[in-house]
Structure formats: structure tokens, C-alpha cells
């Protein structure tokens, strides 16, 4: 290398340092023209930026171009470092608790059946929440017109509520005995026996694309996650 090219390289390095510092300290992406005064007339800002970008290519921080402007940004594959999971413990809302209880006792059960027992429409959000909590699952589809999805509880449900099997759920007499149900109930009142088996005779397996839930097949539903009175 000649002295001249050494010198040129030195100038390039100096310019790269200045660009580095400018881009680092800037509070918004910078356009090349805004950086030029810091380098001096005649500096090839665009070329320098491309060089700098190449230097940071594999690093934890990359030099990225956004439109005409340039900025340092965390490498995309490291974005997870800047995301934090925070868990908070929250009590289940009453609508969710009621929906879960009906699914537990009446499983396999459909959304229409849940609504019939509760007397109010069950918000999509409530079912979603229980699915996300991992306490209920889609079991199959009822072999009736409209083929509604049937819901049942999961192992995690048993685990959370300290039940060994579904048959540990107390029956009518036990509920009366524990004072949870009052004595004056019509004799016709029955508490169903939950069915936790694979598929009942009136259930079909889920369709292959069902695991996104019946969100789309049910466009009339409110998705606001709130229960509201049925119309």
C-alpha cells in the first residue's frame, strides 16, 4: 500500500467514526445530507454509509435504511431480547367461571348449549380465554345441523382444580349437601355426568382446519369478549 492510500483509509476511518457517533446519538433516523456537514465537503456519505452498514451486518446492532434515512437498530433476530414477558395472576371473571363450569359438567357441549344454560350470549372472548388458559379444548363437532364445535375440559383443568377425574366433580346430592344448591329445586333438575372420553357417538372429529376455532364460521358473533344479554 502506498502512503496515499494509507492516508485515504485513515480519512475513511475517521469519517466512519463520526457517522457512527452521529447515528448513535441521533434521536431520529438521519438523512445523508444532514450528516455531510460533520464530514466536510466532498465526503461520499452514501458510500461511507454502505461501508458502515457492511461492518455492522452480522452484529447485534445493524445499520438500517428507512426510506432516505439511516439509523442503528437492534438486529431483527435479537428482537426477542427487547420483549419481556410479564405474568400477572388474575381471578377468572364470573362469566368465564360460569362458562367453564358448564363445559365441565355438560361436556361435550356446544356454545349454543352453554348459552341456553346461562341464559345470556357467551362472548367469543370468554371461550377464547378459557382455550388460552388451557382449561378447555375443542373436542369435535356435534353431528347436528350446523355441525357446532363441541367443547370439553383438558388435563390441565383437572390439574388446576385438583381433580383426579371428571367423575370427581360433585353430583346433585353432593352440591345440595354442601349448601351450594338450595333444597327447593324442581325434582326434574338434574346434574349431568360429564363425558371425558374420546368422542361420543353424536360427535365427529374436528376438521383439519378447526384449530383456529370457529371464529370465521361465526361472523355474527360479538368478539368483544364481554358477555351481554341475548337479544
Amino acid at each position, binding site marked *: 500500500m502506498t502512503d496515499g492510500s494509507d492516508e485515504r483509509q485513515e480519512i475513511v476511518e475517521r469519517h466512519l467514526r463520526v457517522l457512527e*457517533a452521529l447515528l*448513535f*446519538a*441521533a*434521536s*431520529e433516523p438521519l438523512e445523508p445530507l444532514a450528516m455531510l456537514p460533520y464530514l466536510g465537503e466532498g465526503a461520499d456519505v452514501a458510500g461511507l454509509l454502505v461501508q458502515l452498514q457492511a461492518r455492522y451486518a452480522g452484529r447485534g446492532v445493524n445499520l438500517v435504511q428507512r426510506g432516505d434515512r439511516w*439509523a*442503528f*437498530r*437492534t438486529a431483527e433476530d435479537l428482537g426477542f431480547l*427487547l*420483549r*419481556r*414477558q*410479564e*405474568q*400477572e*395472576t*388474575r*381471578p*377468572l371473571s*364470573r362469566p*368465564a*367461571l*360460569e362458562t*367453564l*363450569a*358448564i363445559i*365441565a*359438567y355438560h361436556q361435550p357441549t356446544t356454545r349454543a348449549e352453554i348459552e341456553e*344454560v*346461562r*341464559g345470556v350470549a357467551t362472548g367469543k372472548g370468554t371461550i377464547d*380465554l378459557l382455550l388460552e*388458559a388451557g*382449561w378447555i379444548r375443542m373436542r369435535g363437532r356435534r353431528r347436528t345441523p350446523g355441525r357446532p364445535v363441541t367443547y370439553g375440559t383438558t388435563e390441565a383443568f383437572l390439574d*388446576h*382444580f*385438583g*381433580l383426579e377425574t371428571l367423575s370427581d*366433580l*360433585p353430583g346433585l346430592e353432593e*352440591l345440595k349437601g*354442601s349448601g*351450594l*344448591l*338450595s333444597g327447593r*329445586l*324442581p325434582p326434574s*333438575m338434574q*346434574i349431568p355426568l360429564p363425558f371425558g372420553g374420546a368422542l361420543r357417538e353424536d360427535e365427529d372429529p374436528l376438521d383439519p382446519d378447526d384449530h383456529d376455532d370457529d371464529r370465521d364460521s361465526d361472523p355474527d358473533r360479538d368478539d368483544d369478549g364481554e358477555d351481554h344479554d341475548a337479544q
Partner: protein
Amino acid sequence: MTTPQPDWFETPAPPADEDILYVDVDGYEGPLDLLLDLARRQKVDLSAISVLALAEQYLSFIETVREKRIEVAADYLVMAAWLAYLKSRLMVPQAPSDDEPSGEMLAAMLQFRLKRLEAMRRVASQLMNRPRLGFQVYARGMPEPYQIARTSIWEASLYDLLKAYASQRERGVTAEYSPIQRTVWSLQDARDILQRLIGESFEWVAMDTYLAHYLSTPAERATVRASTFASSLELVRLGKIDMRQTETFGPLFVRRRKGDGQ
């Protein structure tokens, strides 16, 4: 440097030391600051200053200020008193029996304090001349904040679950319950009806006979009997009717009372 007979209504004569004239006590951060400034005017290293001369300058400065009838803060006067003491210690040789610190020691102490104050001022300005964050050195201009994704862990007990189930099943039951509309005889109604039925009859007639028409509706039987019986007692009390019952659980007989005014 003071006028022997101060004339309060005339400007005092200029003090010998020209510098002192332009010194304003308000410009100082306390007596030590003033002393340091006076020491600096000796234009020698602080280690070589004449403490005696410094004390004299200070004392004459305070004197001048007081002559101008300017209020001097107490700590300046405290320092003046201490310097006057120091001066006397420096000028009078120390007696062997003297326990007090020597004048030289006091002078060294003062010198030390002046040097320390000056040193602190020097490093303070050195500190401010450092490349400071936000002035010559910069932090990341666009920090990338953490994005916090909150996930909820839902809490519910088996008791909550069972209670929710039981209460909504019960709610379903009560929703189908429609209460029977009962006709209730008010006491006033019963009294009016009884009085009308008995009318002018002075014969003993069983109450149920009078009420036969009303008692034919089983749903109303109880309220008719109860209200009529209660009003009949009231009518007896008012002396309007007589009542009698010949045997336990037997029929009640009523008749209009033959009374005064009839």
C-alpha cells in the same frame, strides 16, 4: 485608615488599600471566601502567604464596611474576632504555661482551610470541564425500549367453579317460576263485607254461612277467613256485633248487637 472623628453625614475618607474600596461583602460566599480572595491578592502561593497581613486586611475590611453602616453578617464578625485573636497570638510570644494552641498552629490551620477551599474550587471546575454526558458525550439517542407482553395466569378455585355452576343452575330454575297472584282481603274490605252481610240481622248465623259465596274459591279461602275473623274481633271490640263459639273448632256465630242507640 479610619477617620478619627467619624462624620456620619459625609462620605468616609478613602481607605489606604485601594482594593478594599471595591470589595462588596455581598459578593462573597462567607468569610472564608473573602479571606481566600484577600489571600489571592497577595499574589503568592497560599503556602507562602503572610497570615498576619491577611488577618489585618480582613479586619480593616470589616471595619470599613461597618463604618459605611453596612450590616455585616454575624459569621463575618465571628471570623473577625477569631482573626483578632490569631493576630494577638502571633504577635505575643507564647508563655510556656500556655495550654492554648500557638499562633503558628492557628495560622497553619487557616492556611490549610484556604488551600482546601481553593482545591475544591479547582477540582469543581476540572470536573465541569470533563466531557460530560449530554454535552460532549452522548447516550443512545433512540433507545429501544422493552416491549412488555403481559400474559395472565388465571386463578380460580374448585369452590368458585362449583358455586358458579350451582348458582347459575338455580338461576335457571327461578327464571321459570311465576308467582301466583293471590287475592288478599284487606281488613277494611273484610269489615265492610261482614257488616253488609250481617246487615240488621239479630239472628245467630255461622260466619262461614255468610261467607259461603267467597269461600267457594279455594285459593282465597284462607285470606277470606283470616281477614274476616280479624275484622270481626274489631267489630266486637267496637260493640257492633256479638260472637260465639259453642265448641272448640266449632263454627263461629255472629249477630248484630242489640245495643244502645238501637
